[in-house]
């Protein structure tokens, strides 16, 4: 089964090996470990391994958006507020320098301790969060800054006020804005890519996914509650809809898998950031020379082609 997916992964790793690091050093020291990871990733995950990935993706010690920003973005300035009503702490937006270029960064942010978790609503954005992200995207488009979007959200917040403030419409319009952008956009699923709340900021030219991240249409618990009428069947549901990086790569949902330190990103933030930074840089390098109109045409064509069906026959 590896086939094409493995080839893409190998190509990605070989690209990584040729790349300069932020500081100018080479990745050579990491290569051996990357080779081992390749072998690990390329093997078809079992149901248990898929569930282990779900747990790793949700690991409370996993690096969040701000951990990566601190390690990868220079001259960082966080921007606050949607200029309409509120500032949603579950959504981070800001400007800074990455790979010696000015960039806009958008990212979901969970909290580390109980207090911060509550303040950031466990990373679940309100419509205000998506409007804040859209404000940052418009800024990027105006100034020609590339956009880096880090996705790590259990799901858009399912609350009364969120509905009253237009959760569904905000997610739709955030995607519509991304489909209109004339600047390079790279997204990476760095933890939980939870359904509509995730795709709202992931309509990008290149979509990357960390080795132990998950990308789902509904949470495994939600799916189990509906289809099995028992949320305890979540591991079964996860195995059925295959939310892991390799399957997403195979289905053409993501463009490449970003390796993590052995044992998962939570074991070594610096190494995880270095690997993510190299992948983001490689993805952006492919986009800088493409004109704005072509970028957006290609971006739309890419998403219109994912999982496309032809006149199929049912057996």
């Amino acid at each position: 089964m590896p086939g094409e997916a493995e080839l893409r992964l190998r190509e990605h790793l070989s690209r990584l090996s040729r790349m300069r690091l932020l500081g100018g050093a080479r990745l050579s020291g990491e290569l051996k470990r990357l080779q081992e990871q390749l072998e690990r990733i390329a093997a078809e995950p079992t149901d248990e391994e898929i569930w282990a990935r779900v747990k790793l993706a949700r690991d409370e010690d996993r690096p969040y958006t701000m951990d990566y920003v601190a390690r990868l973005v220079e001259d960082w300035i966080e921007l606050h507020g949607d200029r309409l009503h509120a500032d949603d702490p579950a959504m981070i937006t800001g400007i800074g320098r990455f790979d010696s270029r000015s960039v806009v960064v958008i990212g979901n942010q969970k909290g580390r301790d109980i207090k911060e978790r509550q303040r950031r609503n466990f990373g679940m954005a309100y419509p205000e969060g998506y409007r804040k992200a859209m404000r940052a995207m418009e800024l990027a488009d105006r100034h020609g800054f590339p956009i880096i979007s880090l996705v790590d959200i259990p799901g858009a917040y399912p609350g009364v006020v969120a509905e009253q403030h237009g959760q569904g419409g905000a997610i739709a319009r955030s995607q519509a804005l991304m489909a209109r952008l004339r600047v390079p956009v790279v997204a990476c699923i760095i933890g939980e890519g939870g359904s509509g709340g995730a795709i709202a900021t992931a309509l990008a030219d290149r979509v990357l996914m960390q080795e132990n991240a998950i990308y789902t249409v509904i949470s495994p618990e939600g799916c189990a509650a509906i289809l099995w009428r028992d949320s305890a069947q979540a591991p079964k549901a996860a195995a059925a809809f295959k939310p892991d990086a390799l399957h997403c790569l195979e289905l053409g949902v993501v463009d490449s898998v970003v390796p993590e330190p052995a044992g998962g990103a939570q074991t070594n933030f610096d190494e995880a950031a270095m690997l993510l930074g190299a992948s983001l840089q490689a993805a952006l390098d492919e986009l800088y020379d493409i004109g704005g109109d072509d970028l957006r045409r290609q971006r739309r064509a890419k998403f219109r082609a994912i999982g496309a069906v032809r006149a199929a026959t049912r057996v």
Partner: protein
Amino acid sequence: MEKIDVSIEHRHPPEPDGGKPHPNTCPKCGSHYREDELETNLRVCPHCAHHFPVTARTRIQQLADDGTFDEEGEDLRSDDPLEFFDLRPYTERLAEAELSTGLGEAMVIGGAAVEGLQCELAVMDFSFMGGSMGRVVGEKLARACDSAAERGVPLISVTASGGARMQEGILSLMQLPKTVCAVEDLHDAGGTMISVMTHPTTAGVLASFASLGDVIVAEPGALISFTGPRVVQQTTREKLPDDFGLAESNYRFGHVDAIVPRAELRPLLAKLLRIFGNAG
């Protein structure tokens, strides 16, 4: 002699199907109708104005001029990309849905005329797997956008959907950006999209193309919410307002342009087609 309480009989009409109310019994006021009565009333309760669900075929009959509907993409069928199996295989659910609805998928698209004005219709059917959006629904909506752009006519989408189809996993989620990109392509071509939200328009469909209409109207009493009331209640333990997520609440909060009773929908769409159709 024993008295017979007629009012109670009226409020609790016969339930022949083992507790399940008859489809022609109004769930709101309990009135019961013959099929032809409901049909002439556009499947709206003449007594309390409750809007009964409408299949895609009936909706097209109600909206399009006789004989003008020209279906596109009717040969499209879902396969089973994940070999999904919950309590039953996905392929079995698909086959059953096709048998019971006579439809190939949860959306029907095609060209039509409304009061003599040309348009493209994309109509969803809740009775096909809860109107869920998988790859075929996404593809049909995208084709409807292209067809509308090509012919220079407005697209009218009529949604009725529980959201993305779980059985196609992440590929269903990818129908959100896919349909959004298709609508953006239509808008770039100078085209118009009119979104009619009917009961229910929720989750993935609300969070994608349905919310991108140049004009958005809703049927009275339709549930229009990203997350349904049951899940909101369970996750947040919040007390829900009585009109949580209903069309009326969405209107109050500024998310839809108008609430349109079914009998007024066709004349309103004709008016919109006269306004927007000139561009084509």
